[in-house]
């Protein structure tokens, strides 16, 4: 198991470099000039140019990237070129929000996606078809639209939940929960659909296998057959899909944070990109790359746990 972890981490290192360099390059060819952003267009081109020079923006791209990487290896993510605030501090302020969202989405998608998929496969009939329709509905509604509808109903009309904002768990656990109910729901619905569909197909396939018939004949309880044997055997493709939807949740989180005004890392990344504030953008990107690598690693470890052949190979 340790070898798997080390292998995957070794593969992740070049990925981190590729992603971060691509981001560096994209920002450098983008139209936004951070010097102009700082000066807010209120001064002459000479002054803008002087500030660019001072910020080191006229250095070759590889030199700028090399400086950034050297800083990372020293644990220095740098400071915002605009506000001079520490990038680590800025990310720390917001990481709790983003982690809350990711964990919330992972729990909700796992429980509802797998649960609905299993029920649909096992029950079949009208219950199965109803679940199919409901889960397919998730594909129809984009998360940003669903977010606005949820706010209109549960915040504006019923006033059960806060429309926007976030409260830290350590400040008020109940309010923290209420604050993330709608964002997690909006970010999860499409993912639930994908996981439920995959679970149903895999479970249907597993339930039709000969060994299930043998287990039934040997007198095992239905619950045991479904959850201990069929689900475990059906779970490899489900875990794959779960990993993929969690990685794609990174982009969903950007919309969700914006609509629900959650002070998370995605919003910080968007602001950094808009202002071409490279240290902020790169810091956020590193966080998201590590989250993606972490999810991939978890998926791989799940494979190994669920399927001994993977461990042997």
């Amino acid at each position, binding site marked *: 198991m340790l070898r798997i972890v080390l292998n995957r981490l070794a593969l992740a290192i070049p990925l981190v470099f590729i992603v971060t360099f691509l981001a560096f390059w994209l920002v450098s060819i983008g139209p936004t000039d951070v010097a102009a952003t*700082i000066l807010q267009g209120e001064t002459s081109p000479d002054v803008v140019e002087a500030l660019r020079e001072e910020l080191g923006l006229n250095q070759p791209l590889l030199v700028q990237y090399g400086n950034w990487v050297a800083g990372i290896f020293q644990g220095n993510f740098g400071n915002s070129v605009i*506000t001079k605030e520490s990038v680590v501090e800025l990310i720390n302020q917001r990481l709790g929000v983003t982690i809350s969202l990711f964990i919330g989405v992972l729990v909700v998608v796992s429980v509802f996606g797998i649960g609905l998929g299993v029920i649909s496969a096992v029950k079949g009939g009208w219950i199965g078809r109803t679940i199919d329709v409901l889960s397919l509905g998730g594909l129809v509604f984009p998360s940003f639209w669903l977010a606005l509808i949820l706010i209109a109903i549960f915040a504006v009309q019923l006033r059960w939940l806060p429309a926007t904002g976030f409260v830290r768990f350590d400040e008020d656990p109940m309010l923290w929960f209420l604050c993330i109910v709608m964002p997690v729901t909006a970010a999860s619905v499409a993912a639930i659909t994908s996981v439920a569909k995959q679970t149903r197909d895999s479970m249907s396939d597993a339930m039709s296998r000969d060994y299930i018939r043998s287990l039934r004949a040997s007198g095992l309880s239905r619950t045991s057959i479904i959850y201990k044997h069929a689900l475990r055997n059906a779970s490899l493709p489900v875990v794959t899909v779960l990993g993929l939807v969690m990685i794609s949740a990174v982009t969903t989180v950007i919309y969700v944070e914006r609509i629900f005004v959650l002070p998370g890392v995605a919003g910080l990344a968007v602001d950094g990109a808009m202002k071409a504030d490279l240290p902020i953008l790169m810091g956020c990107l590193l966080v998201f790359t590590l989250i993606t690598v972490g999810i991939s690693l978890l998926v791989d470890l799940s494979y190994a746990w669920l399927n001994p052949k993977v461990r042997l190979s």
Partner: protein
Amino acid sequence: MKTENKKRLRVGVAAVAVVTTAALALSGCSSAPAAPKKSTETLTISSALMPNSLNPAISGNGRAGVALYPAYEPLIRSKEDGSIEAALATAWKVSDDLKQITFTLRKNVKFSNGEALTPDAVKNSIMFYKNFKGAPYAVNLKDLSDITTSGDSEVTIKFSSPQPDIGSMFNAAFNYGDIIAPAGLKNPDDLAKNTYGAGPYMIDASQTVSGSKWVYVPNPNYYDQSKIYWPKIEMSYYADQNSAMQAFKAGQVMYMVSDPVTANANAATLPAGARVIYSPAQWTGVILSDRAGKVTPALGNVKVRQALNYGTDKAAIVKALFGQFGAPTNQLQVEGFIGYDKANDSAYPYDPAKAKALLAEAGFANGFEMTLAYVKNTLNEAQFTAIQSQWKELGVTVKGYTMATTPEIATLAAKGTIGAILGQSNANSPYLAYNQPLAANGSYNIYNSTDPELTKLYTAAVNAPASGQEAAWKAVHKWVVDQAWFDVIAALPAVAIASNKVNAPKPGAALVTDFVNITPKG
């Protein structure tokens, strides 16, 4: 007469060479209404623009600078009607030549960190704004030549050239009126995280999330504790105005710093007791930048620029996008501000036939192609679509070039493909309103257009005595309208939406309500 008086007050030079005292403001008027009660609720505010930083030197101003309002006290404060009232300064005197202003400071004032307000603190704070690298409004202080102090309460600020706005420029509008405590000046990096002002509140860094939410608690050192109405102020940045409106309707936001399009779309469905409050503020429209015709030869011809003005149905655009929160116009000054001339608003009535005739006279009967740059947002996208469609009727093909942020305008000249820009500008004083769109190095004047006649008119306006300011600035704006350097579409107000829980004056010339003036209702 009343309008004339307001204009004088707005430009801030009415009291030239006269000692202006704020006796009423200081002592309170016997017939003044009862002071608002203190609230036990948190004042919640939504902001549509994010400040660059909490550091006042680089935070931005107007709607982008609202995060400073609770914590930094300016030397003087601009009121809703444009008049000036005492703040850290209790009296001020402007020299005849508009080159010098002397402030008398309020006694026994302390900053939120406990340091005392002294003339030296004021001097060092203003010099900090002038010298801070990257400070966008330092350009307004470029002619500041000296600051001298006298005794324990006098500060004299001297300029090398006349400053038509000298009587009002040290308010909060461009931040440099906001005085920073010495400790903050010694440690500028900390200004991004903590506030060092003498305002009624101070930032609570532990609850604040930079770039997203700013939380303020009362400043125990504020000189007038009776004006601290709220136990806490929470201001959040809403990138999406739909979300802000939903939060407002859900009762989470008490005061929205908003915009005309959002107000127009939601005015009819606001909760009971809520209202839109607005006051004239800025223009929106097309800056026909390539007046020399280098990139788009047609724009070098005044008849073509006039044709585009005649071919824009401004009334229709205003009706569709802004409703009651906008008015069609052709000029860079809005009603109520010095330099505005009602006659200019009828200079280019919508007349497509005349527009086509002018294009034909200029040799462009078959139209031409041009690129129009704009920052991608709701306001600009809607206007761009309308303009593109209306000018197509004239045979003019408009290609869009979108930008993510306004500062990208600074890089447009280098692109060498942009004929015009769709934008907005603040017009709260004739002098500063001139700088951005008309000055040779103004940020909206990307090809550095100049004209001897315009320079002559501008010089005359800047040096005009108070009694001649109105006529002089009108002459500047008439020339600009006649030459059609712009196709201004509408005069827009500064807009806020207030819930039934707060009293708030109109945003006024500063574009946003000074949060100090938002009081609990009832």
